[in-house]
């Protein structure tokens, strides 16, 4: 895995041209790593999202999924690659034009506490978007509607500050803030990772409801495969800044072909005592992105790796309908 390539992008004009809302091509995100070096957090990642679809992005820490999310928002813009929203290239936009376009994308963050300004009241937090765009006009109906949509009572919640709410409620406020601008795409960066399991279920159900009600398109980032499978239509697996596998969520879980996807799946605790004989499916930990392995980036932990994997980077290629993989030795039996 750990490959690149764009073959899996749905071609404009054929299978769903008008449908593609977000199209990301060869996205590369770099960070300075001191001593004039840079590290590539995201390295040539491509994907597209159709209108009304939920694309899940899954991977372990350091795989670049959050960096990719911010690069889509142009916060900050990526080092290279293309991000198109309804065909409009975002990376070429600057200043005022970017600001105008960016509002159509909104984001929900992992830490519900850090995502809300502790000094502002809930009403002001949710009203900030419409106020910035001058569409508030003094009426609170829009704010109330957004709060009601996420299951908060405007009468009691609007006047309070974030610290008076629990983590799950703060996440609802974040969602209301994003909704108030009527975005086309909402990027959810680990929105339920910091929540208790009972609250997590509430937020996942809420996102499904809102998606249906407002016709939203979601990019949902998480490290938990069970959560990803529950909410996504298609899933993209990332490892160390590269794409591994892209498949409809059921297909990915039932017929994982990439050795890394298989390792991730077998690591998920299933709630049943395991036979002790079972071997560790995957050893070691992800290598440093400062010095990534040559060829396929997963080869250092991969049970199927051979000489070819060290020299030749695998490209995304089709395996079945809608199922794409970047691996020289996929598991297909």
């Amino acid at each position, binding site marked *: 895995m750990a490959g690149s390539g764009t073959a899996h992008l749905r071609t404009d004009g054929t299978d769903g041209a008008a449908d593609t809302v977000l199209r990301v091509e060869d996205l590369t995100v770099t960070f300075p790593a001191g001593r004039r070096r840079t590290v590539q957090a995201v390295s040539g990642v491509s994907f597209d999202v159709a209108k009304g679809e939920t694309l899940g992005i899954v991977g372990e820490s350091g795989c670049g999924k959050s960096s990719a999310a911010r690069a889509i928002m142009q*916060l900050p813009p990526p080092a290279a690659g293309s991000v198109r929203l309804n065909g409009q290239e975002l990376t070429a936009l600057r200043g005022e034009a970017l600001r105008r376009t960016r509002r159509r994308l909104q984001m929900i963050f992992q830490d519900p506490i850090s995502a809300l*300004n502790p000094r502002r009241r809930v009403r002001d937090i949710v009203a900030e978007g419409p106020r*910035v765009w001058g569409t508030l006009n003094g009426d609170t109906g829009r704010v109330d509607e957004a709060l009601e949509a996420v*299951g908060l009572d405007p009468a009691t919640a609007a006047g309070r500050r974030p610290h008076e709410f629990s983590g799950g409620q703060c996440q609802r406020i974040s969602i209301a*803030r994003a909704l108030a601008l009527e975005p086309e795409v909402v990027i959810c960066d680990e929105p339920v990772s910091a929540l208790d399991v009972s609250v997590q279920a509430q937020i996942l159900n809420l996102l499904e409801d809102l998606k249906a009600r407002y016709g939203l398109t979601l990019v949902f980032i998480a490290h938990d495969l069970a959560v990803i499978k529950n909410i996504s239509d298609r899933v993209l697996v990332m490892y160390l800044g590269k794409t591994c596998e892209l498949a409809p969520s059921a297909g990915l879980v039932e017929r994982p072909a990439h050795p890394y996807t298989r390792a991730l799946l077998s690591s998920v605790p299933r709630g049943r005592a395991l036979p002790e004989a079972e071997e560790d499916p995957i050893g070691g930990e992800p290598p440093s992105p400062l010095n990534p392995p040559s060829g396929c980036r997963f080869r250092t932990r991969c049970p199927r790796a051979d000489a070819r994997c060290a020299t030749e980077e695998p490209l995304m290629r089709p395996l079945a309908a809608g199922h794409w993989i970047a691996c020289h030795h996929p598991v297909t039996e």
Partner: protein
Amino acid sequence: MRPDHPVQKRRRRFGWGFRLAALWIVLVVGAALAADVLPLPHYDATLAGEPRTGPSLAHPLGTDGLGRDMLSRIVHGARVSLGVGIGAALLGLLVGGPLGLLAGYRRGRTDRAIMTANDIVLAFPALVLALAVVAFAGSGVRNILLVLGLLGAPAWVRLIRGVTLSYAQREFVTAARALGARGGTVMWREISPNVVMPAVSYAFTVMAVIVVAEGSLAFLGLSVQAPTPTWGGMINEGRSTMDTAVHTVLAPSAVMFLTVLAFNLVGDRLQEMAGYRQSGLEPARRKRPAARPVLEDAVPVAPREGPAPLLEAAGLRTAFVTERGLVRAVDGVSFTLERGRTLAIVGESGSGKSMLIRSVLGLLPPGGVERSGRVRLDGRDLTDLGPEGMREVLGTRLAAVFQDPMTALNPVRTVGTQVTEPLRVHRGMSRSEAYAKAEELLASVGIPEPRRVLRGYPHQLSGGMRQRVTIAMALSCDPEVLFADEPTTALDVTVQKQILRLLHRERDGRDMAMVLVSHDLAVVAEHADEVIVMYAGRVVERGPADVLFTAPRMRYTEALLRAAPDLAAPSHTRLEVIDGRPPDLADPPAGCRFHPRCPFARERCTTEEPPLTEADGRSYACWYPAGTPTEPADLEGSVPHGG
């Protein structure tokens, strides 16, 4: 989720020092503002009284060498001293604040340009420069204020930049930019409200500094010229009459001293409050009156027959005495544990699971904590041991691994010194013996190249490797019970599995007992023999792992299992949620603590608390448990008694 149930509003406590200081500042500022209308003699009216007389009814602070009223002069002097102090502080903020915001928010080139200019200004000796400017441009309130204000600006830039930097990285700033807010709007609406508190606290500190600086200039005759009084000038004038009338120096000095002290006190207290985040478990300031035993004593435990279990907790209660009342974090928990077994404690945040093992280990925060109940290790009561005795037991017989390995390891000491320390302290090994043993330990927990790792520092290791090091440390003195508090929560799933297997293997190999605390039911189900489910400080269900997870009885356990998404279920399956949120432990609901969120709750659940009832090797606290007929008539018959 009930939106109309916000957590208790936090109350701020200021303390007497702060109140007195604030009162003094209000008094001095008020007097200075009202100086002209106060019934005082004119500050420059000579021979208003006998010169150089001490305090009297007509002149509460006496008179100076020319017979002028001291109180009137001090009050009018306050106008200059405080005017310069407050004015210069505000000027500094006005100049330095926006520059600091800009530097901290924009960073990069803007930041470098502003900070370089700032450093150059800071390189000038401030007081010398002030003296030069005043000597050149002439003394007067305006010049003094300008000079002191502008000289203070670089410090303001630094402060505001620092605060801004810490907020500019927060996600709410990213969110505001995603909404389309311009840079200026973000700085004004999102960052500046958060800068206010540290800025106000710093302003008070700066005012104190400037009042002293103005006093020094006035003492040298370089501030406002006579006849206008200033505090520093009065001290200077008083010098000539000091031997006969000491009050002429003492009175202005004392007022200046108190004012500077008050500014600093207020500044410090505000700073404390600015950086303060309440957890809700802060001890109450006022001690409760004599009746200390606020916790009922442990439930009397009947003496056991047969050999004592390895670890036994009986009627453990832990509560925090807070402003909101008694927060019962652990409320009557009992369990036993034998060698070679793993006991898991599961629950959501706030259920008391982590507090329970801290109670067992005696690792509770100091102050405002009440603990009762018994903990016995091999029949020996640990609750009677003092801190000394407990230190002996911890690390040698009981050991712990926590969620974040980085906080368990000291970042500035090598891994080697930290791993060998318990070996040398508890086992009296020599340095070389301890290093040999440490190498062996690291190898046994699956660390490649242990010798190299021992020479390095914790930050050079990955999260999983760090957790392996803390496990090696915990195992170093062959403990009998290993406590693992969310040991894999901070780790990736592939690494989580490795660590859990390692713990399991070590438990078997060493014939230890293990207590595994986790919020993740699936993790627990794979690795525990027995499970305790906690809710709101109480045990609500207990039983063998396989039975408890396949056929839960308590409604909370059942709901928790159903709320977790299942990999085997199709996508977009609607999840079953638990409405509402856990209760406030300072004021738990009557009856069953889960009843406000339980869809099966009936009349009885709201009034009577269900006891933990034991049957078939498992126990649960529920009036209408799962897996029983749902007809009320049948239910009445099936409610278990005793236990």
